[in-house]
């Protein structure tokens, strides 16, 4: 009987350990890092911490929280920088707070924790109002002091940062729709349905059109004038983050690992899709001279605007986060890597890397 008792109790302990292990690992890595930069610092949202990293040397300017991490908060959305010196960060954790930090020292200005769901999308600041889409399907509006203004139900889970032309906010949803939200009327006035879920944001072109991909494996241009799809170009795989737009050309990578350059006028391919060595999720970074992408296999590629590879650099880990330009540096935030931020120069040489203390 003793053996039976040990057997059953062991099984109970094993089950509880495995289940708690599942949820703990899910908490640790339920997304990839969020990254943004100004001329002095890179701002990295990575799990329980947000870091400001000095671009000159890769040292920590500040981290939030300053000491002990709150296990109920997980920051992954790209931090948003306001003109009045705030860094807005959004948490996917069980407490799912939206927090404002002082850009100079990382001190917390305010938090907002009244949303029903978690934050995956970065908020957008328009005319001193913070518009924050939530996974609960609502768009929350706060003033820059963090006071709640209103919330409107949009539909589906909202994972993408809104874009705005000043009159409308354009919101993407996992429910396959692009929503146009009238900022005056504070309501959705029109919408377009795509053939799949839209996990990333839309890109707003200088021509006023919206460019976005979906799990329907197609890049789509939507014309707000006609409130309809202007063109649709199939891709080899699902599309996640929004395309990069540059001088009439649209650059986007897909989950099958193909990199496309399309004519923004009609969606026609400008060159044969380039296939590096792994799926591409993040939005490409376009500089004056080249286009940079990161792949799941941890390699960064730079191409000229004709599609010719200029250099490649093995960063390590998985490159899901959008590469970001910080001063003259190109920043990558690899996932599952000891160094969580790596800076390259314009020739692809590593300048510094940031590894957090364990």
């Amino acid at each position, binding site marked *: 009987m003793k053996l039976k008792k040990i*057997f059953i109790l062991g099984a109970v302990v094993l*089950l509880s350990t495995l289940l708690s292990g599942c949820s703990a690992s899910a908490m640790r*890595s339920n997304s990839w890092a969020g990254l943004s930069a100004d001329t002095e610092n890179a701002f990295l949202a990575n799990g329980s911490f947000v870091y400001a990293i000095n671009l000159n040397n890769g040292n920590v300017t500040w981290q939030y929280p300053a000491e002990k991490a709150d296990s109920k908060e997980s920051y992954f959305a790209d931090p948003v920088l306001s003109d009045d010196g705030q860094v807005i960060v959004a948490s996917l954790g069980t407490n799912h707070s939206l927090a404002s930090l002082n850009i100079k020292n990382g001190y917390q200005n305010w938090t907002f924790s009244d949303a029903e769901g978690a934050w995956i999308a970065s908020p957008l600041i328009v005319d001193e109002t913070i518009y924050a889409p939530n996974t609960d399907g609502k768009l929350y509006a706060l003033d820059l002091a963090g006071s709640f203004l209103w919330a409107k139900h949009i539909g589906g889970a909202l994972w993408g940062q809104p874009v705005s032309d000043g009159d409308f906010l354009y919101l993407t949803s996992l429910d396959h729709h692009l929503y146009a939200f009238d900022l005056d009327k504070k309501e959705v006035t029109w919408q377009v349905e795509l053939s799949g879920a839209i996990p990333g944001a839309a890109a707003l072109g200088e021509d006023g059109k919206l460019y976005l991909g979906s799990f329907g494996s197609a890049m789509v241009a939507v014309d707000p004038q006609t409130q309809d799809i202007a063109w649709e170009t199939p891709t080899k795989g699902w599309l996640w983050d929004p395309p990069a737009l540059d001088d009439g050309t649209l650059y986007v990578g897909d989950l099958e690992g193909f990199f496309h350059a399309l004519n923004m006028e009609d969606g026609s391919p400008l060159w044969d899709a380039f296939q590096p060595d792994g799926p591409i999720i993040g939005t490409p970074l376009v500089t004056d001279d080249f286009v940079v992408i990161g792949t799941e296999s941890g390699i960064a590629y730079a191409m000229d605007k004709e599609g010719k590879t200029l250099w490649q650099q093995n960063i390590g880990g998985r490159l899901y986060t959008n590469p970001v330009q910080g001063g003259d540096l190109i920043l990558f935030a690899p996932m599952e890597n000891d160094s969580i931020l790596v800076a390259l120069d314009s020739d692809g040489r590593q300048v510094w890397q940031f590894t957090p203390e364990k």
Partner: protein
Amino acid sequence: MWDTYVIIPMTNVLLWIYDIIGHNFGVAIILFTILIRALTWPLTAQQLKGTQGMQELQKDKEWLDIQKKYKNDKEKLAQEQMRIYKERGINPFGSCLPTLIQFPIIIGLYQSIIRALAATPLSLLNLSRSLYPFLDVTKIIPLNSHFLWMDLGRPESINIFGFAVPSLAILVVITSYIQSRLMTPPSNPGDQSGAMGNMMSVYMPLFMGYIAMIYASGLSLYFITSNLLGITQYALMGRANWSNLIPGRKE
């Protein structure tokens, strides 16, 4: 290995059921549970056989004699019990096996539910890698996680007079308790195995209730459906020990 042979097949079966029944994830979990119950039927039959064998042993003269004879020598008593188990072809662990086989299913199902509902970017990315070619999931992603009043990807509770009452977890405790009591053979006073069975029939439902309270409510739906199916099975086979449900009453 675990991913390839457990989570991915479970996720695809769940998605396939979800697709063919009209995009209801709660019903998909219920049908999936029925499927699991059907697949583990031979083990349940073995469990019933083991339980019946144990019940018959309680009335067996030789069994009762050794209980008296070696009541002060637990080691010898255990040896004699094992001898009788061997002679009668009874596996004392046979009644545990269906419970234990549920553990990998529970863990796999929990991970499959979380992956299928894809509430975070990484789980959505993992889901995109987990799909068999025959499934066209473009139309069904994201899954509708709402079933009745529940969000199947989150722990459940109902607000009653300002208190969050975990109603599903309570149902899990009740149905687990009923099922385990119905399967527990009657025991004699001083019988160690009976005391052990009684202890487990109290602690195990509480443990399952705790799991149900803190994890995704889709898992609770699996527990409740599985327990109700078990109770129905025993009842239909005429093997349910209803007298065990009333504390202090023995058949």
